[in-house]
């Protein structure tokens, strides 16, 4: 069973943090690197080279509008998976949201008002199944749309490849 209840420390970012050269240097896309653990070490390197080492598994990325914008190369989101974090963003456009889910990273976007709700260093709990969030540091609560069911299935399968294996089994059982 997937654990949809998270408790972790917040790392807050502003609006329009790009995927390429924001989440991840684009050199890792050009070099076709897919190892989550390797990529994790380089997450946010263009913003602050020391950041990735300070982020702990279970921590929560809080981001503004249009998180991960630009070309949704998978490397940035695999890096987040490698860090073991989840994402709450004011908004994400289609490509980055799909890439984030497909990397197996729990994500709630749109999460309206999340930037005002939680700041770097706050401890929050998130229920991804129901969309309820509690800020233990600031003693406040909010409700946002939960993760839609098919995206939840993909995250629960550990990402797109795991989901693919489940679908292939189902198709084989159906004889097609």
């Amino acid at each position: 069973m997937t654990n949809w209840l998270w408790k972790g420390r917040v790392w807050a970012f502003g609006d329009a943090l790009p995927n390429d050269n924001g989440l991840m240097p684009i050199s890792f896309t050009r070099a076709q690197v897919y190892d989550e653990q390797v990529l994790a070490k380089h997450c946010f390197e263009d913003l602050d080279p020391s950041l990735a080492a300070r982020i702990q598994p279970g921590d929560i990325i809080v981001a503004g509008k249009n998180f991960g914008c630009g070309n949704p190369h998978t490397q940035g989101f695999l890096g987040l998976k490698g860090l073991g974090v989840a994402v709450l963003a004011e908004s994400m456009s289609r490509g980055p949201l799909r890439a984030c889910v497909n990397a197996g990273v729990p994500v709630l976007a749109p999460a309206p008002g999340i930037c005002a709700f939680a700041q770097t260093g706050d401890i929050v709990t998130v229920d991804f199944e129901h969309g309820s969030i509690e800020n233990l540091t600031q003693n406040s609560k909010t409700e946002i749309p939960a993760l839609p069911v098919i995206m939840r299935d993909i995250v629960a399968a550990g990402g797109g490849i795991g989901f693919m294996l489940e679908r292939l089994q189902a198709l084989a059982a159906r004889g097609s």
Partner: protein
Amino acid sequence: MGNTLAQKIIARTSGRSSVSVGEVVICEPDVIETIDLVMPHYIKTLAEHGVHRLRYPERIVVFADHEVPSQSPATAMMKKRLPRQLEELGVRHFYSEGRHGISHQAIIEHGHVLPGMLVTGPDTHITTLGCVGALSPPLNYEAVQAMATGEMWLRVPETIRIELSGVPPPGVMSRDVAQWIIHRLGADLCDYRVLEYGGPAFAALDMDFRMTLCNVAIDVGAKAALVEPDEVTAAYLRARTTAVLDMTRSDADAEYALVFRQDLADFEPMVAAPPSPDNVVPVSQVAGVKVDQVYIGSCAGGRLEDLRAAAGVLRGRKVHPRVRMLVIPTSQEIFANAAREGLLEVFVDAGAIVNSPSCGPCYGNLAPLVEGDVCIGTGTTNSPGRMGSTGASIYLSNAITASVAAVAGEICDPRVFFARGDL
């Protein structure tokens, strides 16, 4: 209430009679377009998970495009192994180096994409395929899964209808219209929606124009863009395929999120300034910016219309001594046509570099920009680092404006440039 073309395509490929906006469904795409550079990793990934066959290998079409020819021994080795790997998987549509083009261009030229199809693939600018009335949302890395399962999931999108009328003035090209419309609509409106183009202007807008319109939609987060199929579509495809064409359009009473009307006569040459493709301003606002590189190419702008426009500027003129100009036709077919028309000679005489079709500079692996460089051209996007250093500045424009900058050594309003007449 009627259905949009996007809804009809999603309904058909998900085995449903109709679908509603917001529903999440699993569809079987008619074609999966992919590129040589990602396939070895995809095949390896599948093999590591015990997957050694693809569900519909006949639906997969592979192109050499991002790095042609190879620029490193590693790529060369990868390309050496790929034909055998594809053969083992039963993938027979493979356009290798020399028979290639940027995938989104060449797949249309080879008649693989028809009106009403659902097509997907890893590369974002696959939205270009909407030029023939297909729905073509990109899947990025998810494409590997789609190849194995023959499936993809989709949330049924809303559609924005864009009605174009009139004729563009001289000096205005598809790129100005395309770039200005995404700027005008903006990312918030376009996100997750399909842009559907139609209207009286299209009777005179050819496939090159339509490709550019659909290409840039992805850069404001649209799910896809398409032009409703018409006589221009049918005439273009009849020369390229014997398949029966399904000319289905949206119903007259289909529900749109927005209907946007625009007269093409109202346009002027536009430039997308750094740092994003929707930062669009009239060219006069950035006039005087010195340039180091000019680039005519990419899936957004290396087509015959672009090469003719560039040659029109360069004929009898020289590229400014400070400037490196690259001209890279989008496909082998375009390259050959440009040769027949004598355009390549004009470029070389002017002091431009002509390269064989590839994504090249727009992928950042050919002629990389260095810190402080300024480039203007027809590449797809101007996000920092796209063409090399994050410290370089990229301006996007039509091929005329870019070529004028090559001669003048700085960004210049083409209307001013030609009025001066002395350059």
